[in-house]
């Protein structure tokens, strides 16, 4: 009876912790503005998300700077260089949520975005659609690259860069 109670409590505590999701290989993170566009092909992270229980939700992502792909080999090399992302010194762009809230359009993740050695609090709006054991997170937001000292201010590339992350995920 004691062991049954233990298992029951364990089950309850695990279910209240939130639903874990594994990011699938078909993910896509794109960036674009009128001057430049491309993708980050390598993203990893942990997703704990239950739309009915947002207090336990957590989104942590790591984008590998080296995986940037603009569609032009020379541009890629330039983007990884010290004038832009400085991939050698800052190999990852990281986001760690502190709070997830429901909005009219979906959800928003409030947290710290770290890029090029600069950390700032940002709010990332996203939607979530679920189909069976799979789900898709789609986030669309803008980043001002100069706030993170990425590239020089007033150069050929506009400051605001639109990011779209489409992350298909599978329940763990």
């Amino acid at each position: 009876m004691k062991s049954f109670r233990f298992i029951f409590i364990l089950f309850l505590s695990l279910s209240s912790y939130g639903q874990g999701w594994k990011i699938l290989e078909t993910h896509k993170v794109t960036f674009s503005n009128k001057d430049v566009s491309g993708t980050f092909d390598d993203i990893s992270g942990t997703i704990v998300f239950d739309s009915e229980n947002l207090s336990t939700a957590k989104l942590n992502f790591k984008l590998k700077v080296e995986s940037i792909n603009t569609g032009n080999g020379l541009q890629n090399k330039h983007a990884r260089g010290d004038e832009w992302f400085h991939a050698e010194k800052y190999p990852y762009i990281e986001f760690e949520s502190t709070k997830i809230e429901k909005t009219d359009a979906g959800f928003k993740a409030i947290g710290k975005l770290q890029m090029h050695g600069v950390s700032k609090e940002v709010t990332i709006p996203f939607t979530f659609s679920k189909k069976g054991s799979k789900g898709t997170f789609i986030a669309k937001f803008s980043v001002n690259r100069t706030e993170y000292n990425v590239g020089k201010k007033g150069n050929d590339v506009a400051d605001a860069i639109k990011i779209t992350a489409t992350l298909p995920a599978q329940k763990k």
Partner: protein
Amino acid sequence: MRKKIIFAISSGLLAGVVSYFYGDMIQTQLVEDYSKEVPTMAIFISCIIGTLLATIGHWIFTKFIPKLGEVIFGIIFAGLTTASLVGVLGFVFKGETTEAHQYIFYCYAMPMHFFPFLAWYSLKPLFESK
């Protein structure tokens, strides 16, 4: 005039043929395919347009600057051919491509930009008026 047009088209065709075989060799050896980005027809058309423009330019320079026209034209033709490489360096692939695909494109497309220049000067002696 007819002779000049035949010269322009035949040197363009020669450049197109050489470009086609060169491109085919690079793609086969390096196991890459650029047929989507650079269709064969586009290679031939751009080569013919290039040699047509060169022929027109040559005619203008030699007509209006008889003494130095030939030299000035040669320098400008070589300069523009080299400058056209900027287009290759700045070429952005749409959709998903590997970095190898993007880098090999430079050695695929860059030499091709010189073929109209080479073909034009190769055939020029055949069409020169005595």
